[in-house]
């Protein structure tokens, strides 16, 4: 311990202090949630444990198992099919398979309620009535809207694999299926488990879909404790438990990854060769990859467009346009702030010479693992505390009565978005900056230039594509964010996501279509743009 502090004075620079301040600013809500595990729950906790907790646990467990199975099934197999086999429309399927990501799962849930309703087109076509407002329905909704996370990571892994490994297996006498099961699947495990972790975080983050399907989960429980029971302590305690579960999942993943860390080691390799297969096999495989595209994207989209036609006259008002602009404005502003903080975190960490502050700085990017509802509560506690003290101060010393100063403003909302999506901006920028390497900045330093000048002249121009990607990714995420927004949004401000949720809660599901479509299109456009930016580089 003594050794750590030997060079403390020498190695502390202005960047260390700035970094520590920023990490605290980002980390306080997260730290507060953890502290509440120690503090314990509020008065209603007993009631909750007796009546609801087992329900939350069982339902969340059931959802995790179900969505894990289906997202792996569709994600891994479709990735393998589009990489390995020459099927019709292969090129189109490759990116169509990503598109369900553009539809938030709560919106998919609303559309499913219409598709499978009495008189819905599933009944019209198949003359079959299926009740989907249950656990199984929710699992299907979440699976079809979230499998692209698994698909994208697994496909990227397959594209980076050398063909030699498959040819070696074939030469040893293994058939196509055996090669896939015994070789490809175990090799791809770190990749698809990585994607699966993202799926599970989204499942535990989901509020809108579970609420609409009437399934009690941890997240709906947090809302219940906060809005119905009005007990912040209990809500936070639930939140802390949820975060604990997520961290256990992440730790398990880290362990399996470190045990077998064999991503491809060969640098220059030939990609896996596509092989020709019979017409019948081609059709079967095409049909298989069509299932997630249809159920995750096409059917929900058609249902929404159909509803939008029925309702746009009532919904498309000046008020609606106003909300749309508010949504866009808040999302753009949040994206800029988030990217700015990601840059702070990455570069101040580099410029600071104290190792342990670098480790502490990692707290900053934990937000993405923490459900929106939990972050919202974590933000509420310190901001309420500050507001109370400001009010007290004005009351006692200036003899003026004032209301909340920061709570109920957009600033608190943007602060929470920044914490939640910091990792989304951090990853692409950090990856690009690692790719640039240290030597450019070091050269600039040795040529007599300071860190800020170096960043402005050398790093920023070279990082522009990554920064643009980061802006777009955060923008899309904020546009569709629901649980956090519901808790923190000011009264006088609304977002499209909340508007869609309100319509759906008021049994005006068809009216929810227009704001939903708007969110989806703002989500698709950047995905296409990003595709272009990435393929150009």
């Amino acid at each position: 311990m003594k050794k750590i502090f030997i060079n403390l004075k020498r190695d502390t620079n202005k960047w260390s202090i700035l970094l520590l301040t920023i990490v605290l600013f980002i980390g306080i809500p997260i730290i507060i949630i953890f502290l509440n595990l120690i503090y314990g729950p509020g008065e209603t906790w007993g009631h909750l444990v007796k009546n609801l907790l087992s329900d939350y646990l069982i339902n969340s467990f059931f959802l995790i198992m179900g969505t894990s199975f289906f997202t792996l099934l569709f994600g891994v197999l479709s990735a393998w099919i589009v990489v390995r086999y020459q099927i019709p429309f292969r090129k189109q399927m490759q990116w169509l398979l990503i598109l369900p990501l553009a539809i938030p799962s709560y919106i998919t849930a609303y559309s499913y309620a219409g598709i499978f309703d009495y008189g819905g087109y599933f009944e019209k076509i198949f003359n079959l009535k299926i009740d989907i407002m249950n656990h199984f329905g929710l699992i299907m909704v979440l699976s079809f809207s979230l499998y692209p996370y698994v698909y994208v990571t697994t496909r990227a892994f397959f594209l980076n694999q050398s063909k030699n490994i498959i040819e070696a297996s074939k030469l040893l006498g293994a058939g196509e299926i055996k090669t896939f099961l015994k070789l490809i699947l175990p090799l791809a495990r770190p990749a698809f488990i990585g994607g699966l972790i993202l799926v599970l975080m989204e499942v535990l983050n989901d509020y809108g879909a579970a609420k609409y399907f009437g399934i009690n989960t941890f997240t709906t429980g947090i809302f219940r404790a906060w809005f119905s029971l009005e007990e912040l302590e209990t809500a936070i305690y639930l939140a802390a438990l949820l975060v604990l579960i997520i961290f256990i999942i992440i730790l398990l993943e880290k362990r399996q990854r470190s045990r077998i860390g064999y991503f491809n080691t060969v640098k220059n390799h030939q990609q896996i060769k596509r092989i020709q297969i019979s017409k019948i096999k081609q059709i079967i495989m095409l049909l298989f990859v069509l299932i997630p595209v249809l159920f995750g994207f096409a059917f929900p989209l058609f249902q929404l467009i159909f509803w939008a036609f029925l309702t746009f006259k009532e919904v498309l008002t000046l008020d609606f346009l106003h909300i749309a602009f508010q949504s866009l404005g808040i999302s753009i502003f949040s994206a800029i702030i988030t990217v700015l903080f990601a840059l702070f975190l990455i570069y101040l960490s580099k410029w600071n010479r104290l190792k342990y502050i670098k480790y502490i700085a990692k707290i900053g990017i934990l937000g993405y693992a923490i459900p929106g509802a939990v972050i919202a509560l974590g933000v509420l506690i310190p901001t309420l505390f500050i507001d109370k003290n400001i009010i007290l101060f004005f009351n006692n010393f200036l003899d003026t009565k004032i209301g909340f100063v920061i709570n109920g403003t957009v600033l608190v909302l943007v602060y929470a978005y920044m914490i939640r999506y910091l990792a989304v901006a951090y990853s692409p920028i950090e990856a690009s900056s690692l790719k640039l390497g240290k030597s450019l900045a070091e050269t600039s330093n040795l040529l007599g230039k300071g860190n800020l000048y170096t960043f402005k002249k050398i790093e920023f121009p070279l990082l522009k594509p990554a920064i643009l990607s980061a802006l777009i990714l955060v923008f899309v995420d904020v546009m569709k964010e629901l649980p956090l927004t519901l808790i923190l949004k000011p009264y006088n401000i609304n977002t499209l996501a909340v508007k869609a949720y309100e319509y759906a809660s008021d049994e005006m599901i068809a009216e929810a279509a227009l704001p939903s479509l708007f969110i989806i299109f703002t989500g698709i456009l950047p995905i296409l743009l990003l595709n272009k930016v990435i393929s150009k580089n």
Partner: protein
Amino acid sequence: MLIELQKLHKKFNKGNVIALSDISFNLEKGNILAIVGESGSGKTTLIRLVAGLETLDKGEIILNNKIVSSNSIFTEPQDRKVGMVFQDYALFPHFTVFDNIAYGISKLSSKKERVEEVLHIVGLEGLGKRYPHELSGGQQQRVALARALAPKPELLILDEPFSNLDIILRNKLREDLLKILKETKSTVIFVTHDIKDALLISDEILVLQKGNVLQKGKTKEVYKKPNCKYISLLFENITF
């Protein structure tokens, strides 16, 4: 004495790996020192400490009679007047050759002349408008060298200057480099794993093994009287 290192220690990985232990040496102005060692010998760490790209655990580094690194002092790399050519050259890809070289020149008035001057020294006149990716490997290295020389550093560090070049180019560039370094009267530390580079270019040699100095002395003397088997083995099979 331009540079003095006194009892330098450096550990990595939370103190488990000793990178350098008890390193001391001096270098006179205008001399060229070759640091020779295998990968993992600590040679790169040593030059990074001198440049101010790493912090030391114990010891002192004195540049021009001023302590720049110790347990209580750390001078930022931008304030050390040390130039460095990296193994991968680290040319700024979005700048032209001219802008790369002009980057470190602080006086606005003399910028253009100085760039022309160093371009002439490294033999790349007329290539100022090119971008780094439009140059060959050998040309890129010369640009990196020109860029490091342009602000007239007190000390020039070269990290494995020939490792990215093929053998034919290597032989020619050795001669050119020596000429340039002597012409500019530079004080140089250069790092190499190839003893031949060291013999042909340096005035002094320092042999590192696993973070320890095995021998340090005038190049000719070390060649004639290696003080241990490891070094005599290095000189085996070398012909000129």
